């Protein structure tokens, strides 16, 4: 499985703590690879690769598109990526070992679909897909990599973020699979819950969304040291 870390938003402690959490909550052997521009402080158990390898396109328009470049790259029988700003609350073995006949994303069950995404759909501002915890079986996400490469110019022009691209182009056409309800929570909406809790703050800044309530980063909570 893979994580991405670049820039200075998250430091190596984010990676190391996640590695420890996975170790405690996954009952099968795994390899964690961090794709990064800075290997300082990473524990030796974590493989590191240059994130430039995931950047075939010279663009800053679609935030975290690099995740899709993991598809078809030295795939194992099961493959996945995780965001760094997550907390694992419970054993995730079943999530990883279950069959993934299609690439599987998080559906934002913590937000009301009708109010948050359906009503403003036509404005192009909606998003109900989250790519913080994604897994697929070998070869089962090839279609997404191929579609993305084929339509890259249009995609990079249109979408500021990977999640929005996935929502408008692939969830709209029922091409994605999703984890079940109750497995994931959003700390800043419904607090702790499920097997994994997300913090999910990047889109607030990328979309210049002003928020009326404080949105916490993982390191601003006690969970950051709870591993």
């Amino acid at each position, binding site marked *: 499985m893979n994580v991405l870390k670049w820039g200075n938003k998250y430091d190596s402690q984010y990676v190391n703590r996640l590695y420890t959490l996975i170790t405690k909550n996954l009952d099968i052997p795994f390899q964690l690879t961090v794709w990064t521009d800075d290997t300082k402080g990473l524990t030796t158990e974590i493989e590191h690769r240059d994130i430039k390898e995931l950047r075939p396109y010279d663009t800053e328009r679609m935030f975290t598109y690099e995740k899709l470049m993991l598809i078809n790259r030295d795939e194992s029988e099961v493959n996945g990526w995780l965001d760094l700003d997550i907390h694992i609350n419970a054993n995730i073995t079943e999530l990883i070992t279950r069959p993934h006949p299609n690439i599987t994303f998080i559906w934002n069950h913590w937000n009301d679909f009708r109010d948050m995404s*359906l*009503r*403003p759909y036509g*404005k*192009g501002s909606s998003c109900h897909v989250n790519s913080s915890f994604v897994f697929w079986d070998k070869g089962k996400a090839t279609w997404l990599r191929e579609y993305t490469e084929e339509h890259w110019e*249009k995609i990079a*022009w249109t979408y500021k973020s990977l999640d929005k691209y996935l929502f*408008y182009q692939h969830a709209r*056409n029922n091409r994605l699979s999703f984890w079940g309800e109750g497995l994931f929570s959003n700390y800043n909406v419904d607090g702790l819950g499920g097997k994994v809790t997300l913090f999910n703050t990047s889109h607030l800044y990328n979309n210049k969304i002003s928020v009326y309530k404080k949105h916490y980063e993982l390191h601003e909570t006690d969970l950051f040291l709870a591993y």
Partner: protein
Amino acid sequence: MNSTKQIYSWLTEHDELTFVACNDFTLMEQLRSMGIKVHCVNYDINYKDREDVICADAIFDEVELKGCVVHWNCEKTFPIGQVHRGEFILRGDHKEHNGDCNPIYNHAQLMTQNGLFNLYDKYHDDTHTYIYGNNMDVDGI
């Protein structure tokens, strides 16, 4: 329909129109009542059950664009002139709403993005930029 608007005289020159990203259903119905064949392609899934809407993304999906293509919100999509050739009426604004990927500031921008160099007409109003023309080769009309 406010027939004093320049765009309406452009629209009524055609027997068949395909509107893209337009939710002005009153306008489209008025054009139909004038005998014009009007199609509506809109990616908004709120319209998926409407019989008068082809619920599809004109940029990404396989969808036939018939007659003159009227893109009502060019600020929201990749330039349609790069995926279709023909006659166009293009309208866009630069309000920069969340979800707008392509704010439209002037005629030259719309012409260049869409390859619309055979220009019939153009104008601005208080909020939008409009152009009318085609992106076919000089001898391809």
